[in-house]
């Protein structure tokens, strides 16, 4: 399926990636090329096939519901772009 510049704009917004207007057309072309190639999957008969969601057939292990690590804000904040008083500083969310 071919996708157009408007769809690219919408998807880029969903992905939170700023794409300049002049990139939308070339991207639409590129992504359409990839999606057209992907569409050969429609040749495969998958009626009644269960989707495979895990590479190995295994169930998730259970563990005790206890704290294993923590109480070390300095390590947690060590790579933050901006901190103050032991907190992350982020842009204002509510006006």
């Amino acid at each position, binding site marked *: 399926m071919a996708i157009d510049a408007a769809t690219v704009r919408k998807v880029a917004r969903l992905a939170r990636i700023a794409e300049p207007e002049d990139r939308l057309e070339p991207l639409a072309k590129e992504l359409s090329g990839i999606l057209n190639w992907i569409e050969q999957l429609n040749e495969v008969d998958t009626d009644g096939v269960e989707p495979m969601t895990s590479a190995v057939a295994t169930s998730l*292990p259970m563990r005790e519901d206890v704290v294993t690590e923590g109480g070390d804000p300095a390590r947690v904040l060590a790579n933050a772009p901006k901190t103050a008083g032991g907190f992350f500083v982020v842009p204002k969310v509510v006006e």
Partner: protein
Amino acid sequence: MAELTSLTLKAALDGLNSKAFSSAELTQAHIEAVEAARALNAFVAETPERALEMARASDARRARGEAGPLDGAPLGIKDLFCTEGVASTAASKILDGFKPTYESTVTANLWRDGAVMLGKLNMDEFAMGSSNESSAYGPVVNPWRRQGSNSHLTPGGSSGGSAAAVAAELCLGATATDTGGSIRQPAAFTGTVGIKPTYGRCSRWGIVAFASSLDQAGPMARTVEDAAILLKSMAGHDPKDSTSLAVETPDFPSFVGKSVKGLRVGVPKEYRVDGMPAEIEALWRKGVEWLKDAGCEIVEVSLPNTRYALPAYYIIAPAEASSNLARYDGMRYGLRVDGRSLTDTYEKTRAEGFGTEVKRRILIGTYVLSAGYYDAYYLKALKVRRRISEDFEAAFGKVDALLTPTAPSAAFTLGENADDPVAMYLNDIFTVTVNLAGLPGMSLPAGLDAAGLPLGLQLIGRPLDEGTLFSLGGAIEKAADFRAKPQKWW
């Protein structure tokens, strides 16, 4: 002491054990080799001081009689592994300067066994690529060149730095990761051995995530035995990764050299693709002959859904990547580019921090997961994934392992496939099936093409049967007697 860098890992460990040289000497020789090879761009961070400190500590352990299985062996670490206090960037601008305050389980296992870290190895950004050209640090250059040519070739990707460093004898072995072929294709392009173990064999904890249901760590080395030694240390159950398998790690090195007599090896007919060079087809036939001579029974098998593996992968991997990479929002770590609002900050940060290929895959992944397309693309791909996995199950009812080429070509020139994403994706046509099915796969060098470039063969095994791959790999290695090395030009 250039000759120390030419040793296999096994020979180096033997030399350390017999006190022929110290880890400090061995490590110093490798530090000098790394410094002299900057033209290859294999390392994104060199850590010579830490290496020497680790080497001296290793020598002290050995003197006390407490040496571990890898004690004193200098290794390179792919930049996808988080290493405490040492920049770990996944070769992305968005993680520029990120210094983890923790250590990945796989690297922690290597240090537990005494290994020495030489530095961090270049790669495709977030492991997305087959040529190393998507790295924010620029591509790695393959130490191999075509005869009579000076053009720079790709070492493959995404573990191009690992492959080049091992091939150029800058380290005794390296860690790597493989989501669609990122260990095996670079191994084939550089004349090295690489194994992607069964999904869940190595912990993914502390490895920057790309596509969580496909990512697996594995070693790259210069011999099958060296790869077995490294994998034994890297693998093991880890409660911190819920998909890590609670199984014992076999003594992998003991499988190398074992007789392969009576093993049934399948040759999948669908792995003959249009446009594959005759040399690769011929090498594959040679591999069959070598295994026959070693006593294996060769069986033609069919994996009918093979051609749908790549398109399914290019839905599943980008879908998982778009979700995994949502964490790079400029708030808690990494790059932040301030904007007019919170959304604007997110969008600018991610636009500036991610490279072209990473953005392309995030957009594809976001699209196939978006309302109205989820069933048509993502769910369809998961169903095709099961069909591919069932193909392997059926084949493994008849055979113990499969033999295929690793890649459809030898190393290509940097820039050659840069304008056509689909042409680039086709590099993984023989490797990607293994990730979808969670199986172990190994690439090993088996010969040279007419231009003098290495070519690889791939062995694929049953889940958790890496041991058989090490035995078969050992048999092919012995028969192929691959001794070629890249001519030093760097």
